[in-house]
């Protein structure tokens, strides 16, 4: 450790959707390293500690050869404008400012844009469109919730501070004794590291979440259940009845749900059943629900894509306006169906985690990649940019899982530009190229104001 250190207070961790903004970072400015991250959980500490800069990595490459950033921007713009079905994907690990540029580019080139939502909480998005959602910010949970239910998730390992900072132990306005003022229920098919936090543990048979949720909806409405409910779901009727009573009689209840619910059998039907249950309960008391979102700014991506296009993910501009069709315009599908003929991947590594068929096609088309590190996807990229890390090297906006926007406080400078800067460059160039195409096609864009007399 050198003398040359700096403390950044109230910095934000973007590693998971908790987006904790109370980090106190100690930065070694000579080593360009965060040496201490007070208040961070294990995941957050690792995220900050592992972040070092590979000074000598090239900032931009074309086909694996180092080039200037300008050359790479030019090539990226050319590649994207020439394509007939260019796709943009990723976006959840970058700032809203960068996301806005990415949508703008895709709009101009009449491409297809999709975010990692389509492979995590996409079903929750669809369920939301179907039934709506009663929800709240996390501070409201901290202040008011006396019944907290987690369904299909393991926050102790995926969102380690969710319990301590927002939902279980914190003392709030109407929960002055913290956990003592709350009942915590965990519904999961497995026993996990999160289990010990629960006052009540419910373990349905795998793949039976929908049935359990639907049974609860019936009980809440005062309907009778058939006797074989335990046989079918693995949950005794008495347990369901008890939970139903607790839900109806609490003062402020919350249902958090994770990918154990959204990505298992039933998918958006599961999320829909859970959202409908929370809605039903408002007849009796105040009740909210909230997906526990993963990546740092996936919620920001949903928001940006929605405000610019009207739809949260899986959006296609080929007709000159946004269309939404998950299953067609979601990236796994545009790739597996071999529709895409060029791709811009931002802060994501589909080549390492997509289905085989999709990866095969991805590897056969020109790819433009923006990433902070070398990835499976960037290895094969036609144009690769190395960018700085949001929240560590650059400022910008991220949205917490409850849609609360937070401004990032960077810790130290990176020699690499940020995503927004690169995307702005591509956007500008793409715009010029598309306008040139427009004029070349004989169309007139001349200002049609009456000529000077």
């Amino acid at each position: 450790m050198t003398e040359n250190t700096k403390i950044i207070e109230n910095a934000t961790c973007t590693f998971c959707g908790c987006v904790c903004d109370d980090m106190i970072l100690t930065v070694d400015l000579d080593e360009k390293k965060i040496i201490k991250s007070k208040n961070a959980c294990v995941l957050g500490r690792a995220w900050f500690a592992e972040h070092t800069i590979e000074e000598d990595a090239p900032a931009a490459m074309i086909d694996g050869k180092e080039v200037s950033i300008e050359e790479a921007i030019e090539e990226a713009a050319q590649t994207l404008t020439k394509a007939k079905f260019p796709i943009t994907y990723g976006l959840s690990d970058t700032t809203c400012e960068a996301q806005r540029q990415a949508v703008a580019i895709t709009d101009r080139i009449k491409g297809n844009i999709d975010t990692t939502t389509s492979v995590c909480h996409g079903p929750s998005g669809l369920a939301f469109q179907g039934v709506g959602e009663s929800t709240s910010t996390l501070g409201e949970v901290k202040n008011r919730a006396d019944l907290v239910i987690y369904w299909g998730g393991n926050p102790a390992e995926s969102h380690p501070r969710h319990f301590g900072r927002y939902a279980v132990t914190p003392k709030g306005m109407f929960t002055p004794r913290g956990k003592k003022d709350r009942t915590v229920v965990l519904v999961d098919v497995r026993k996990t590291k999160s289990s010990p936090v629960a006052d009540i543990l419910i373990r349905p048979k795998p793949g039976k979440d929908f049935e359990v949720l639907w049974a609860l909806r019936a009980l809440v409405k005062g309907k009778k259940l058939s006797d074989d409910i335990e046989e079918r779901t693995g949950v005794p009727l008495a347990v369901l009845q008890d939970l139903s009573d607790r839900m109806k009689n609490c003062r402020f209840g919350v249902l958090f749900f994770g990918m154990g619910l959204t990505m298992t059998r039933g998918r958006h039907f599961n999320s829909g059943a859970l959202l409908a249950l929370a809605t039903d309960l408002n007849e009796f008391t105040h009740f909210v629900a909230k997906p526990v979102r993963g990546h740092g700014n996936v919620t920001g991506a949903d928001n940006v894509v929605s405000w610019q296009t009207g739809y949260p993910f899986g959006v296609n501009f080929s007709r000159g306006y946004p269309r939404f069709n998950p299953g067609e315009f979601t990236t796994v599908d545009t790739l597996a169906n071999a529709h895409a003929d060029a791709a811009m991947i931002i802060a994501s590594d589909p080549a390492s985690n997509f289905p085989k068929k999709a990866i095969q096609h991805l590897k056969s088309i020109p790819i433009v990649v923006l990433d902070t590190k070398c990835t499976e996807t960037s290895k094969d990229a036609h144009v690769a940019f190395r960018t700085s890390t949001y929240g560590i090297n650059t400022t910008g906006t991220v949205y917490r899982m409850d849609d609360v926007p937070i401004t990032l406080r960077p810790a130290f400078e990176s020699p690499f530009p940020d995503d927004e800067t690169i995307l702005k460059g591509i956007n500008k160039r793409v715009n010029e190229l598309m306008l040139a195409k427009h004029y070349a096609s004989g169309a007139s864009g001349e200002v049609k104001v009456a000529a000077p007399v």
Partner: protein
Amino acid sequence: MSAAMRIVNGKVYDPANNIDGKIKEICIQDGKIVDSVPEDATVIDAQGMVIMPGGVDIHCHIAGPKVNAARKLQPEDHRHDVHPGTPFTRSGTGGTVPSTFATGYRYATLGYTTAMEAAVTPIGARHTLEEFHDTPVIDKGFYVLLGENIFLQNLLREKRMEEFNEAVAWWINATKAYTVKLVNPGGDEPWKGKKNSNVSDIDEQTDEGLTPRQIIEAFIKSVDKQGFPHPPHIHCNNLGHSGNYITTLETMKTAGDMRAHIAHIQFHSYGGELGKNPVSKAAEIVDYVDNHPNITCDVGQVMFGKSTIMTADAPLAYVLKGHSKGKWVNADTECESGCGILPFNYQEHIYMHTLQWAIGLEIFLMAKDPWRVILSTDHPNGGSFMNYPKLIKLLMDKAFRHEEMKRVNQKALENCSLRDLDREFTLNEIAIITRAGPARALGLKNKGHLGVGADADITIYDEMDDKEMMFNAPRYVIKSGKTIIGNHEFITDFIGKLLHITPEYDKKIEEVVQPFFESYYSIEFSNYAVDDSYLHDHEIIATGKASS
């Protein structure tokens, strides 16, 4: 092309400068209206056309967390109403809650150049400002929800009024807002904390030891003292309930002779017994407004067809959910606000909907002073802003109005006096309720008129008999001196700016606010206030007690 422009031969409607349809030259330089321009200035020949200042929407919902939730909620609303891009403009989707780009361009295509988002939670300010940056052409600002702010209510209960004033000013600065918004004062805590209940009377003492009236009075006084350009923008208690006109009158009386703006007053002008069908009390409401120059209001006209309810009045949205039986969003914001959203449809054959439609029209047609009774549909609550041209036709064209009246619930028409109202608005009066009036109510001295020094926000319409057609398609729209729409086509893009205020406050108030944050908010105090990087292009409107 130089920045100078001259518009000749057009009929000018500029009520703020007492110009009513006179042929007059308008000169523009560097984004402002000037006395004269050099010979070589660009000329627009407006022969046969009507020239008005750009429209100003004083109350709409176009950006921020609740608007975006409503967008996400309704793919079915976007699908049938796409908004293709042009080589100069971005694409988007429409429906009752258009995407940001479509919102800006569509306002422009109606000749509107300024719009105020009427309800933003403080914690959602950053989000709203981001969306504003993607909302082209128009200038915009927002009203920040402070009425249900628990910290401010605590100060109020403890009668710490000096600190209350300082904290209001701090919050306005921290969020870059234009004024304060109150929604169903006192109703948030019963909703969130007492099993979805509500307050029902302006003098009802809540468990928190405050009445809605005390909250209203405190904000009116505070804003008056600090001289904000626009007074508290108030959504009264009991919205939509039969008999609520009493609450509305009482709310206005609470202001004494201080300024107050009553939002979407149509929804608050109902007589009759609670739980039964309402009757019109438009006359009583208009009478009060006409005789109290300190009061301004916007109408919140209902237009038949699809709408989207989005409101910080969560209990109201829940009541409406009971009628619509469809999807519904509730969204609580910690320490600050509630929110309800649902798709809605106003139908001619339904008594209530027709009565609402009729009461709105009555209010317009009965008001003696159009300057303070401003055109709005509470977009998208009463219907989309895209209905404004049709609404204008309803006001200007008696024959059309009577045709429309044949198609609605006749029983409802019997419980109001719309059939007896023969008034037809003039173009000058339309210019008042869509331009000059809202600009004056907002304290925007450079908007809503075409005098020297005004912002060069100008709309030029072809004069037509069919007023809906006329107001639907301006031939030219000029924003900040730039021609955005020329010959009905977008010829360039433009971002527009944020309008906000920066009232002075004593920094020490932060030491009072901070401990509350640390206990009850889930984000850090120092990450709460929005920094200047979110402003982009902006204009600070002066505060301070006006002498007039």
